[in-house]
């Protein structure tokens, strides 16, 4: 069996704010295999971006990684010196950001910024890096790459800028590419092109990809495996197809039901998830999803479920799981998805 290229264990990241300690990432563990495409999904503020930044030790102030291990090829990134991590960033682990408009330096030429990634790691000299920058722009399908390297970011379109960002990320042929919402700032046609590009590059170069997104559609088309995060924790993980077909955590189930579907009955309404993500300074007792969960039982208020096997290769952190919700709580016919609606454990009874 092949070794995972990235092994994350019990990762914890906290923000020490004036109002209290925010547990942004709370005991996240996962493995990334070479060449794999892994999606990390969740609402805004669920800790998915902070998980990504923690891997590279780039968590902004006043945040800090407070525990766990991030093993890259067996070495713990969290124990490395600042110089060692810097050597890894952009070389073995590259990251691309959400907004290509603000992630490129407006006063430097695009080609130069791609070269910088190579020069910082001495993987090429000035001359060969200039040539490689053109090749990279070609590789990310930017037309007229020879002249585009001399352009400033404001002269490129949004899609081209994101392509240029990807080219920067690929400059040193990293073994892992972390993409933090790479398509969110782009319009839909361009989104599809960028996703296609990332998929192609993953296959051509065998670069493992961690795709962080709130968009399940993005994950469906690209990732072989997904991790669903809620309130800083992993609530469900498994192969994408399996989870889409048979979600076991009520949160995953609700997320999927909130997706508009082209093939759905026209009269069916979109189901939003009632309530708001929890305050992470004072997280709810027990299962963190229970205040919003239609299928909560009394145990959910008291005890915190751990990730457990629910199907081959699939794990979920839930006392009930959807199998039981379908069997015992009529989840199939449930129209009203207010908290406690399926199980009859009403708000107010135990919330107070």
């Amino acid at each position, binding site marked *: 069996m092949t070794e995972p290229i990235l092994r994350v264990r019990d990762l914890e990241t906290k923000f020490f704010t004036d109002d209290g300690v925010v547990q942004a990432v709370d005991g996240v563990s996962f493995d990334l295999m070479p060449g794999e495409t892994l999606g990390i999904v969740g609402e805004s503020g669920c800790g998915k971006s902070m998980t990504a930044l923690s891997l590279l030790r780039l968590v902004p102030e006043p945040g800090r990684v407070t525990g766990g291990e991030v093993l890259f090829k067996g070495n713990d990134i969290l124990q490395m010196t600042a110089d060692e991590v810097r050597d890894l960033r952009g070389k073995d682990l590259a990251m691309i950001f959400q907004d290509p408009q603000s*992630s490129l330096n*407006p*006063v430097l030429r695009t080609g130069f910024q791609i070269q910088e990634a190579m020069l910082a*790691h001495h993987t090429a000299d000035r001359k060969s890096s200039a040539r490689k920058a053109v090749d990279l722009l070609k590789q990310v*399908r930017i037309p*007229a790459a020879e002249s585009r390297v*001399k352009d400033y970011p404001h*002269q*490129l379109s949004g899609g081209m800028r994101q392509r240029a960002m990807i080219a920067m*990320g690929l400059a040193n042929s990293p073994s892992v590419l972390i993409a933090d919402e790479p398509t969110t700032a782009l319009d839909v046609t361009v989104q599809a092109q960028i996703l296609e590009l990332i998929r192609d590059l993953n296959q051509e170069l065998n670069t493992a990809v961690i795709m962080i997104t709130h968009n399940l559609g993005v994950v469906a088309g690209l990732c072989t495996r997904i991790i669903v995060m809620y309130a800083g924790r992993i609530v469900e993980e498994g192969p994408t197809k399996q989870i889409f077909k048979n979600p076991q955590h009520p949160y995953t189930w609700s997320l999927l039901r909130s997706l508009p579907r082209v093939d759905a009955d026209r009269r069916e309404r979109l189901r939003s998830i009632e309530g708001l993500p929890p305050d992470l300074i004072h997280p709810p007792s027990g299962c963190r999803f229970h205040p919003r969960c239609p299928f909560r039982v009394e145990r959910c208020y008291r005890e915190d479920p751990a990730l457990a096997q629910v199907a081959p290769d699939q794990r979920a952190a839930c006392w009930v799981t959807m199998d039981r919700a379908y069997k015992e709580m009529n989840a199939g016919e449930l129209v009203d998805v207010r908290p406690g609606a399926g199980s009859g454990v009403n708000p107010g009874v135990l919330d107070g």
Partner: protein
Amino acid sequence: MATASATPADRFDAVPARAQVSLWSDAWRRLRRNRLAAVSAFYLAFVFAVAIISLVWTPYSTSHLGVVTPYGGPSGAHPLGGDQYGRDILSRLMEGARTSMTVGVGTQIVVLAVGITVGLLAGYFRGWFDTVVTLVINIFYGIPDLLVALILVFLIGQGSLGTIIFAIAVTRWMDMARLVRGQTLSIREREFVEAAKASGAKPRKIIFGHILPNALGPIIVQATIGVPSAILFEAFMSFLGLGIQPPTASWGSMAADGVNAIRISPHIVLAPSLALMITLMAFNFLGDGLRDALDPRQRR
């Protein structure tokens, strides 16, 4: 534009054709369209040229007494007349231009070096260094600048240009340091800095390669506006007799020379004062023009 070969991909990605335009060439184009700033730049280039020429040639000696009738008014041979010692005012005005420009530009070079270094380091690393820098800046703002400059001149010894430049720079570096610190604080939070960190760039590279180039616009404007303030300060010190020592001419000391005779021979005061005023105005117009030209929100 070179995207002549239309591949399917660039039907989505092609941007409207626009010539290879950088931030700076764009600013330069806008600056030229600002007539007041353009005229000012032209005038200042002229003053610089005169200052340089005065090194090798002036119509008359700048220090020999009696080349003109003392207090003599303007005439064909001496267009600006003579001062109370019979020195040619035009020649001394040229030398004064050299003094003013040297002080103005020299001070700004010192201010830039100190202000940029201190501001970048304080803004980027923050922590105790930033606390100390902010404290020192506030202390310096609290002390009257003339007092600081005069004490320094007394301590180091009067007269030399270097002393005056140093003394003025000591009272003028805070504006630049504070501006650069503020710029750095805001630029360091921008995403491209995070992207640079994520690509493994070292702090030195981030500070000088990413933050400084983005702060250059405001720095240039601040430096341009700082020149006249230094020139004025030097003129004031020279007027008080604590600046450039005679016989070297300075617009401030020339005005001081003529003050006693202002009722009978106003031209002695008028010539350096006007030169000073027009030069200061030109610097301020140019500074304003640069501010407008370098403001990316005003792209036209």
